[in-house]
């Protein structure tokens, strides 16, 4: 994977809930992405860095939207 500059895409694909991989595989995908970020951040192009960020936002957006009771106390950030 290290020889491929777009290996982060494969990591996001492994981690994505949409691809229905088992949880250990998704965990592995997130771990690979984390290693890429920690150790090879400086080697990525601006486009790849933006792609990684969007991949992360995509993964976070896959957390199931179960409605919560509203807080009510605070409606302005």
């Amino acid at each position: 994977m290290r020889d491929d500059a777009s290996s982060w895409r494969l990591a996001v694909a492994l981690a994505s809930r949409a691809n229905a991989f088992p949880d250990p595989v998704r965990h592995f995908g997130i771990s690979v992405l984390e290693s890429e970020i920690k150790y090879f951040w400086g080697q990525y192009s601006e486009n790849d860095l933006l792609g990684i960020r969007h991949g992360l936002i995509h993964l976070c957006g896959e957390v199931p939207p179960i409605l919560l009771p509203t807080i009510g106390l605070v409606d302005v950030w």
Partner: protein
Amino acid sequence: MDGNNAFAPYLVSKLALLFVAVLKRTWLASWDDPLPLLLELYHRSLDSRLLILQILRYVVEDVCLSPEEPMPGKRKKLLSQMLTVTVNSEATLKEIYPEGVEWLETLPGWTKWGVPGQVGFLALVAGTVGERVGEIFSRNGEIDTGAVREISAAIKFLQVCIPWGQQRSHHPSPTLLLPIF
């Protein structure tokens, strides 16, 4: 746990670590303002709220509580200041920074004291704890496991804020306003 249905707690933790790794490198650099996303996820679902509480806890631990964390000093100082802005209300920030923080104005929609009218994550999370505890009391002690996970994550976040957070508040905590007891 099957990957199709729910988000396993260890996946939420791993995702939080990944988010923090990106956040530490991009916040106020190539990613000006991740707060709308954090807030949207905080209000979205129980799992996403647990994710945000872990992200906030890990980032506070790394930036403010871990001297050995490898991070350029200037960046650490900047993120530490940004975390202060993130967790406090506009009124509290006006006490902490009477003159304001000039560079905050460069962020779209921000003033020298953060987003106008902001209440900050401390009050938001304290409000969540108050609500969940209030619910448990109103159900005669019937305990929902989701609520317990939420309260536990919220308290862990509040706990890491104690050593470095501002120990004063302009307004009484929202938790104290709730008729819990």
